[in-house]
């Protein structure tokens, strides 16, 4: 089983300042993405606070492979493949719940919530070579977590989660999490589930696109202006102090900090997290001190992509689920801040609902853009998509990030540079090694 070099020349499809439309339309490329991006690499799976008690579980996917995220009786979070080791029946039928055991209804094989095979129906007809301990639910080969964010990799080998995230992503995750006066998120507020008929990468590119909001979300900003008198279009115009940043490894962000510093308080028109009141501010100062509190409050509103499938925007943890080359699902989990005043967390929910979800006043217009994109891609006289904004003005910051202005396409270029690198690798054949040798990685803050 030697390396099988890819037959697709990704260098010909992804240039420094443009990409070929085929990257969004070719089913063969999509299949390779499921292998190289979603099977070989680290993928966000869920948040540990979704399963607070022993036996709590949630079924989700890594790529398109069904996975159970479960807290076992010892309190450890495990990622188990949702497939009976006998003849592949899915052992878990509901999206979430609590279970001591997962029982396959087909022939009755029963597993403990740590994945061990507890009992086999009529085991006497298996021979002496049958060992029950070899037939537990298969584990996701590598699992890892950072402050409650649980990741999995279907490959037993590869870079560590710590290497994947890097210090820059951890710093941004900290800014999101530490808005909680207890330093912990509570991701138990349910989920918005929406879908669109277009490629999954449109969502990750658009979530980090500072050029579109004043156009696509004009109707939303107009309502904000009418209600509050604040015209927020200065956030996303070409004079905005907000920045696009490429954190490397495909992780990119819209950095609102320079804007929030220059125009303190303006974001409060839409960022309900700032309507916190003195009690919240005092709680933050008590835990983090004045300086850090100021830093945390200035960073609100940040848009972060953790390649390939996790986005943090505003109050939400957003998960991108590739279904087909032209079909995508997106799940949005609003996060509560533990220790914050109840009314603040309620306000976070209400603010989220106004823009997001399948009936919201903002994200629905983004989905429409993705579908129009997919239609436009059928016109191939000139098959290229231009991503050159700010190429000449961007700069390499002292911290190693590439920085551009809010409306520059630094973020898209950062995503594509990493995508090309990942997709140009040989087939992830190492993945086919033994299912044993699982590793668990806990990345320390």
């Amino acid at each position, binding site marked *: 089983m030697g390396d099988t070099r890819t037959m697709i020349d990704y260098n010909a499809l992804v240039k420094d300042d443009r990409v070929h439309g085929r990257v969004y339309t070719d089913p063969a490329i999509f299949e390779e993405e499921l292998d190289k991006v979603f099977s070989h690499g680290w993928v966000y799976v869920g948040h540990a606070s979704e399963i607070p008690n022993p036996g709590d579980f949630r079924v989700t996917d890594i790529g398109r492979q069904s996975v159970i995220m479960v807290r076992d009786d010892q309190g450890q979070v495990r990622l188990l493949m949702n497939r009976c080791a006998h003849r592949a029946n899915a052992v878990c039928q509901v999206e979430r719940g609590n279970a001591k055991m997962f029982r396959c209804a087909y022939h009755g094989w029963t597993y403990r919530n740590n994945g061990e095979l507890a009992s086999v129906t009529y085991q006497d007809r298996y021979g002496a070579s049958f060992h029950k301990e070899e037939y537990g639910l298969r584990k996701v080969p590598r699992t890892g977590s950072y402050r409650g964010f649980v990741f999995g990799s279907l490959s037993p080998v590869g870079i560590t989660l710590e290497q994947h995230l890097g210090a820059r992503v951890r710093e941004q995750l900290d800014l999101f999490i530490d808005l909680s006066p207890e330093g912990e998120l509570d991701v138990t507020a349910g989920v918005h*589930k929406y879908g669109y008929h277009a490629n999954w990468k449109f969502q990750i590119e658009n979530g980090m696109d500072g050029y579109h909001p004043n156009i696509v979300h004009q109707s939303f900003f107009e309502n904000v202006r009418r209600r509050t008198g604040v015209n927020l279009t200065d956030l996303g115009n070409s004079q905005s102090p907000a920045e696009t940043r490429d954190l490397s490894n495909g992780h990119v962000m819209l950095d609102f900090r320079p804007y929030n510093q220059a125009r303190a308080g303006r974001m409060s028109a839409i960022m309900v997290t700032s309507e916190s009141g003195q009690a919240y501010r005092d709680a933050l100062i008590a835990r983090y001190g004045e300086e850090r509190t100021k830093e945390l409050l200035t960073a609100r509103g940040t848009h972060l992509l953790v390649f390939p499938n996790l986005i943090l925007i505003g109050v939400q943890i957003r998960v991108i689920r590739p279904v087909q080359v032209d079909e995508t699902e997106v799940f949005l989990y609003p996060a509560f801040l533990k220790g914050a005043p109840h009314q603040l*967390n309620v306000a976070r929910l209400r603010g989220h609902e106004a823009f997001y*979800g399948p*009936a919201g006043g903002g994200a629905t217009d983004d989905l429409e853009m993705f579908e129009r994109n997919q239609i436009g891609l059928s016109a191939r006289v000139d098959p290229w998509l231009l991503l050159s904004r700010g190429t000449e003005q961007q700069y390499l910051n002292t911290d190693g990030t590439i920085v551009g202005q809010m409306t520059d396409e630094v973020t898209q270029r950062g995503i594509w540079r990493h995508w090309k690198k990942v997709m140009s690798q040989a087939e992830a054949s190492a993945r086919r090694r033994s299912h044993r040798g699982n590793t668990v990685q806990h990345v320390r803050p």
Partner: protein
Amino acid sequence: MADMQVDRRKVEDFLYREARLMDAHAYDDWLALWTDDALYWVPSNDDDIDPERHVSIVYERRAGLEDRIARLKSGAAYAQDPKSRLSRVVSNVEIEDGNDGELIVNATFNLTALRRHRMDIFAGRTIYKLRSDSDSFKISYKKVLLINNDEVIHNLTFLI
């Protein structure tokens, strides 16, 4: 009870009118059906959730409703450009007395939505609180229980 017969006819007329206005995207006429203290609620993931501890698909007071309508009328609500073509049936109407002279009305609906060559079906139950208003009613509360509120939804930017 003679009054209840009158109410049933009036309630059904009101619900059919609301359905027609929603199907026709008659935004201002629909907004005019609501009281100033109204609550419009479409739960997410389950029918019985605590809206202060669980996200909703829609949870709006009057101001939110006005924003929704203003956006839809703005010409820049791209998720409704082109508009969904809508046809819904409202049925199984049950009426009971509520507090302060309001009626509590349960009704089921079945809605077909056509947009960009795709047909979607939505179905569910709606719970209204209706307040008498001259010869008709106004909506002070509307909770829409979609049977697919825990499923992936592609576009729910029309009125339901």
